[in-house]
């Protein structure tokens, strides 16, 4: 087990390094540079050269790469944002909270609802309920996420103005008491989390239905039924627990997709999270921020893969000794 973990960790670190290296050179070799934005009459060529010197952009690329890697690996120093002149680590830390909040709320909706609907469909295959769940989930799954968000804004913020359309807080919410402040946050969270969660729930329901159907045809389920267990126990303990295995794999592997899914949602709802931060940073060629968020997404992928293995061992005793 420890050798397995060691090997996995080494592979994970290698992958991280690879992603970071590739991203570093891609970002720097791409057309456009962080000073391109300041291309107006007020900035002279001499000033530009000076700025490049300050940020170290005048050095050869391999030297920049090694210096950057050294700072990151040895000192955990992600540098200073070119645009905001603030520590990248601080900016990431600030954006992490909103993204986690949105992602967790959406995940709860996605897996809660998706599991229920998928099980409901698989228990009665071929019935109207099954076809309805399959059809509706296919319809929702096929919607563009960003358009769904816009339509939600159109319906619930503009036509019937009951929920706020964007941002995480109302103006002046910081002065409120704790409870009203939380309620304000919840109202802002509701629309983006529901859109992201319902969209995901459609995919999860389809997946759960498929894998549970397969399980319910297995002989051990027939055995469980034959020995007189209640249908609820057969489905939820003997069926769902086994159907969870592939679902866990999918869940863990989708952790990184969360960042890109949240990116679109965050852009539509002006949610101040990591997705928006990345998006703006890429457009501004803010190299340090881009590299840091890419590193984070690579960490999420690697962590997701490790998590998948660990969770599967936990859910399936058969895999533990392997």
């Amino acid at each position, binding site marked *: 087990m420890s050798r397995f973990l060691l090997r996995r960790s080494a592979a994970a670190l290698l*992958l991280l390094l690879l992603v970071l290296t590739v991203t570093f050179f891609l970002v720097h070799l791409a057309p456009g540079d962080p000073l391109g934005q300041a291309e107006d009459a007020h900035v002279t060529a001499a000033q530009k050269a000076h700025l490049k010197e300050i940020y170290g952009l005048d050095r050869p690329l391999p030297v920049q790469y090694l210096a950057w890697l050294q700072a990151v690996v040895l000192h955990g120093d992600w540098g200073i944002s070119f645009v905001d002149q603030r520590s990248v680590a601080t900016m990431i830390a600030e954006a992490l909270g909103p993204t986690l909040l949105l992602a967790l709320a959406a995940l709860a909706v996605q897996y809660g609802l998706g599991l229920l609907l998928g099980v409901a469909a698989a228990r009665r295959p*071929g019935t109207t309920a099954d076809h309805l769940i399959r059809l509706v989930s296919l319809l929702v799954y096929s919607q563009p996420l*960003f358009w769904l968000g*816009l339509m939600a*804004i159109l319906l619930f913020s*503009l036509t019937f103005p009951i929920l706020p359309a964007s941002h995480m807080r109302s103006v002046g919410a910081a002065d409120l008491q704790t409870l009203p402040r939380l309620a304000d946050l919840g109202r802002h969270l509701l629309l983006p989390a529901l859109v992201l969660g319902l969209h995901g729930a459609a995919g999860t329901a389809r997946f759960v239905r498929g894998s549970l159907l397969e399980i319910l045809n297995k002989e051990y389920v027939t055995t469980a039924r034959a020995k007189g267990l209640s249908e609820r126990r057969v489905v939820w303990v003997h069926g769902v627990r086994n159907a969870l295995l592939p679902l866990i794999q999918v869940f863990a592997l989708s952790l990184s997709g969360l960042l890109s899914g949240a*990116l679109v949602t965050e852009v539509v709802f002006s949610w101040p999270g990591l997705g928006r931060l990345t998006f703006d940073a890429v457009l501004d060629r803010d190299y340090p921020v881009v590299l840091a968020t890419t590193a984070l997404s690579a960490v999420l992928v*690697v962590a997701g893969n490790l998590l998948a293995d660990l969770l599967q061992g936990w859910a399936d005793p058969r895999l533990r000794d392997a």
Partner: protein
Amino acid sequence: MPDPRERFWRPRRSRRPWGGLLTAGVILVGAVGLAALAAPLLAPQDPNEQVDPAVAHDRPPGTVLAAVHLADGSWRLAERVVRTPAGLAIERLGRRETLAAGEVRNLTATGVADRRRFLLGSDRFGRDVLSRVLYGARVSLAVGCLAVLLAATLGVAVGSAAALGGPFVDALLMRTVDALLAFPWLFLLILLTALFRPTGWLVILFIGGTTWMGVSRLARAEILSLRQREFILAARSIGQRPLAILWHHLLPNAITPILVQSTLLLGNLILFEAALSFLGLGIGPPTPSWGNMISEGADVIATSWWVATFPGAALAVTVIAVNLLGEGLRDRLDPRTRTP
């Protein structure tokens, strides 16, 4: 107990409503494809034409404006036109103007001969949303289909090479696929497109080049299992070359699941192109693509809801159609997933 006679004249269709949905998918995909091909015939206007934007901009669906053809060759749009003895009285944005009869080319007994109909409204440049939605179908379908073609070709090539190239090639290719699957692709693709601003063909290359891994795994698995079958052994024993066996025996038999997966991938890639365009990274304006139309509409959603709503609806219907087609095909072709 089903009556055996029933099967003779009532085919299995009645017990498989997804067969009906397959038909719906085929019809819908056909309709969208036809609309895209026939866009120049169907579109009421040129998708980028801006006729008199001062009057035509941000008009709600169903607006009909009179089009006055002036002597200098330009067009002017008006909400109302009234024929007067001297010429024409027109109302533009509530303001009345009069034109002499000699100034107007398309004068009739009651007004002017031409109308501009904005069936789905107009955007802020006075362009016709319906025409842009129709032309946008071309972009979405072309990018989606070509990217899927690229992904499927790459996937089949890599999968076949891994399955037939011996253990070393297999391990090398499949570990590469594992590593590529572990990359945060969606994220990196957004990064790449944002950095390099690809246009047209490069968008297709980027999308297709990063989504072939699933197909390659499937192709490899299918070929590996087919390889054990007797007809392949027979082909080998009569001395057919490996490539000929691949082309004539393995691929034709493996094509069904690959086709199903490619169809389902197509839906995702169409969505993905639209998401990139929405973020301003895919097909850029003024070329109408559903993604960049929704992006333009998002800015004015509070005042002109139709600009974002209709291209999005077209996109949703297209992807639903493609997914119905994929699911239906899978139900029909793969007995393992058939609904009981």
